[in-house]
């Protein structure tokens, strides 16, 4: 729904870079699946057409008995380059803040330094309950 400027995309890029950094860090302790912690950089064309360097990376870990999978790439509800986060295979809606921190649909009034810590907080809050798909319809009151 929103076009973002190149400057905004760059700001977001640094936030996503933080995500990938955490993925690498996290892979040391709890990751179990192959490919965890992989990260690299790829050239992505921003909305203005200028190349914007955004990192890519994935994480696949088990946290408190629940699977957290994070991939960084195009997609997401906001039409921008976003990490895709799944908990036990279900999408966890996640959103970057201007300062590089993150919120999720589960903890939407609390910020986390990176997508992995936001996903772990969601796992703690969910207590094993399944996320439901994002189905909110535009408001009609």
């Amino acid at each position, binding site marked *: *729904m*929103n*076009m*973002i400027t190149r400057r*905004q995309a760059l*700001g*977001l890029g640094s936030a996503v870079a933080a995500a990938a950094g955490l993925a690498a860090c996290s892979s040391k302790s709890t990751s179990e699946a192959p490919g965890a912690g992989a990260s690299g950089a790829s050239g992505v064309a921003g909305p203005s057409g200028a190349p914007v360097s955004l990192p890519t990376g994935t994480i696949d870990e088990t946290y408190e008995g629940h699977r957290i999978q994070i991939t960084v790439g195009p997609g997401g*509800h*906001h039409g*921008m380059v976003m990490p895709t986060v799944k908990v036990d295979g279900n999408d966890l*809606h996640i*959103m*970057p*803040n*201007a*300062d590089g921190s993150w919120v999720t*649909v*589960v*903890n*939407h*009034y*609390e*910020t986390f330094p990176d997508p992995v810590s936001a996903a772990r907080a969601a796992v703690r*809050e*969910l*207590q094993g*309950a*399944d*996320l*439901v798909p*994002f189905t*909110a*319809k*535009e*408001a*009609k*009151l």
Partner: protein
Amino acid sequence: MTVRKNQATLTPDEKSAFVNAVLELKRTGIYDRYVNAHNWYLLNDSDFGDRTGHRSPSFLPWHRRFLLDFEAALQRIDKNVSLPYWDWTADRTANSSLWGSDFMGGTRRGRDGQVLDGPFAFQGGKWALTVGVDRRTYLRRGLGSGTPQLPTRADVDSVIALPVYDSAPWNSASNGFRNALEGWRGVNLHNRVHVWVGGQMTSAASPNDPVFWLHHAFIDKLWAEWQVKHPKSGYLPAVRTANVVDLRSVLSPWNNVTPADLLDHHRFYTFDTESGGQRF
């Protein structure tokens, strides 16, 4: 004229009238339209794009209009009902009468946070959640498990002392009164209370918990208190600004009301602390 009262001062009859009207909106499905609308805005309001209900200057007028709509819906059920406000600087423990079984409930909770007493307990058969972020259909709360302390009056005073309403970049990184009140910066008032209550109140579908309205009625009152303290400070931005709602642009989803139309709450209601319309 509607008078919004401190929930701690409500009579038993006033509490039951409010609860019954809320339950009736729930029964008819109207209540869940508000849950859905809030969920939609919270998930779409972005620091990097359009933002209306949250993390933006219109956080306060948007919620004022949202509450006015809800209050009008309650008054179609019972014309004597008004939205009570929860002064969490005063009623700041899980033992407060707010959480009693005659009002919000939640004094008794399960290990999973399930509210087990009061009119909104799932077992009562009148409060099953239909719009949420996960498949749990029962109301949950933490009451202090997410963060130990509710904001104090000193915290509130420090935010009300801020002279400028809002500032660029007009999002969760802004300095100014609005963002300190919303809680993305500074001592954190509004966001912290959502986290303190816990359960559905921490999620994008936070109006699933009826205490949402009492919390936001108090946030709305703090805006009015700030206006009295800073009569020369107005809503900002006053001119067209990318992605946010300026003073004279319309607010969605209503599209027929602007922040300017909503600045003076006296057009719609007064607070029980006001005498002669201006005092707190």
